């Protein structure tokens, strides 16, 4: 990365099942305005806007970037849209970072959103083609068999997914923007919730949320004049791989391992478990936490579940995962990756409020999408990276 990039503003909407008080334009504007306020900026300070969301088929609004340009103050400015399925919130942050690190722009507004109440994501994802057997019902129908394969491969106890569900929902109680708030959440409640896609129970899945998340990125000079402490981008990486490749490992995808290695190398991280203070990772189904612990190199292969079992990933552990409550507590799909990136930035800025990890100096934001074939990550820190 050539020029240093700072995250100087973060804005989120309240995530909810239905935000019928606002249109899509109102939703993205709400998050963007909050990010600008945090950055001490107004619409006119912004040089370029980058927007991300999941496939158009979800809400049936084609090319929403055209419709949303004026709501985001992008008229007369460069506006780009990024499109990488569920990982889009992450890759949008990465592309926007490049606009600043390359020197093309000094102040970039990044906004991601989804309005699931106006869409039907499950059926938009359940399409059938003449050369496929079909019969997949939604994302859970695709990922449940992957989880079963992980359980067999690792020999993990059956209750690991339940423990992740409880941990993330407890974390969500400390996040004012979180969608799901279940104060009496317990392992028993999760265990007794209905099986949807066996082995995935109802309370082991993410909700469907409306919401938007925005960040303001600037160059080093601009960051000097902003009111709140910035988060510095120490590395960004995006990787992809084919959905259908013979010999591909869907449980522990190569692209995810490569993406993590790249971002660690850029950030000068050699021992991620020790050097990273907390991480916001994309866990739409509870078992993906132990799976990604291995994919991200935090645990040896087959042992990610032990970090859940011994509490290492809880707020009291040595590597808190998803202090915000994660995707399991708020899932505006196209924004879910941006939420991970933004929450990682809030942690190292010391601005995460009641879900702040004490003294967090280095945090990872992670997103994945498609059939676990797209990965996007960034590392952010409280200190400036070496030039």
């Amino acid at each position, binding site marked *: 990365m050539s020029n240093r990039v700072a995250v100087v503003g973060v804005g989120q909407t309240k995530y909810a099942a239905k935000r019928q008080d606002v249109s899509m334009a109102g939703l993205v504007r709400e998050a963007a305005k909050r990010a600008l306020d945090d950055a001490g900026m107004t619409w006119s300070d912004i040089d370029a806007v980058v927007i991300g969301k999941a496939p158009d088929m979800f809400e049936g609004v084609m090319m929403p970037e055209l419709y949303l340009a004026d709501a985001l103050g992008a008229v007369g400015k460069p506006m780009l849209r990024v499109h990488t399925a569920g990982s889009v919130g992450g890759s949008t942050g990465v592309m926007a970072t490049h606009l600043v690190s390359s020197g093309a722009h000094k102040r970039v507004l990044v906004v991601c959103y989804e309005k699931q109440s106006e869409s039907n994501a499950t059926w938009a994802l359940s399409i059938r083609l003449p050369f496929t057997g079909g*019969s997949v019902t939604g994302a*859970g129908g695709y990922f*449940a068999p*992957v989880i079963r394969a992980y359980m067999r491969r690792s020999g993990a106890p059956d209750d690991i997914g339940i423990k992740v569900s409880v941990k993330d929902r407890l974390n969500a109680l400390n996040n004012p923007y979180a969608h799901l708030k279940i104060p009496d959440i317990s392992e028993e409640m999760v265990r007794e919730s209905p099986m949807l896609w066996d082995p995935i129970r109802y309370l082991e899945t993410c909700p469907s949320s409306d919401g938007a998340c925005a960040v303001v990125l600037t160059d080093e000079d601009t960051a000097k004049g902003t009111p709140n402490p910035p988060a510095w981008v120490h590395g960004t990486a995006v990787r992809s791989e084919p959905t259908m490749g*013979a010999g591909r490992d869907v449980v522990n995808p190569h692209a995810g391992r490569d993406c993590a290695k790249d971002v660690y190398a850029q950030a000068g991280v050699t021992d991620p478990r020790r050097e990273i203070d907390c991480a916001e990772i994309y866990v739409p189904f509870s078992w993906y936490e132990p799976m990604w612990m291995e994919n991200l190199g935090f645990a040896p292969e087959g042992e990610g579940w032990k970090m859940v079992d011994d509490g290492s990933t809880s707020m009291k552990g040595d590597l808190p995962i998803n202090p915000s409550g994660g995707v399991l507590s708020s899932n505006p799909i196209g924004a879910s990756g941006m939420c991970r990136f933004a929450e990682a930035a809030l942690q190292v800025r010391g601005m995460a409020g009641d879900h702040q990890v004490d003294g967090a100096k280095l945090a990872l934001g992670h997103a994945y999408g498609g059939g676990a074939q797209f990965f996007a990550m960034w590392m952010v820190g409280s200190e400036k990276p070496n030039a």
Partner: protein
Amino acid sequence: MSETAEAPGPVTIVETPIHLDYKFTPGVAQSRFLRALERGEITGQRCPKCQKVYVPPRGACSMCGVATDEEVKLSGKGTITTFCVTQIPSPGLVPPYVTAWIRLDGSDITSMFLIQECDPAEVRLGMRVEAVWVEESELVPDLGNIKYFRPIDEPDAEYETYKDYV
């Protein structure tokens, strides 16, 4: 204007279902695959580099990035490498129904199919299954010719033989 008429509330949401009809244009590899299905056969293609067999064939090995041409005829028997039991209703399906990832014998990639003619609780990793086809008179160029897979009376496959096929 009648004084008793109630002011209508704001319109917050309007449902407008979208239907997307499209023409699917198969390439050479998929065209051969679909013609084979029309004859009641399953064919794959072998990668000349890694020797792995793709079903359905896409005309190229996406891992090696080379074109595939050699046709391989498959028996329609296979092994369940992983699965899920779905409890959510789906058009034409009554829960619970089983969707399995099946490695067809002689292929090196899994495909997703329904498992029927057995209790969902009986389905397990390594279970041996076979394709159940529509009547010969109903054959069309579509993988939908295979209605589902059902268990066959063979010992379960050893874990080592299918563990890498997910």
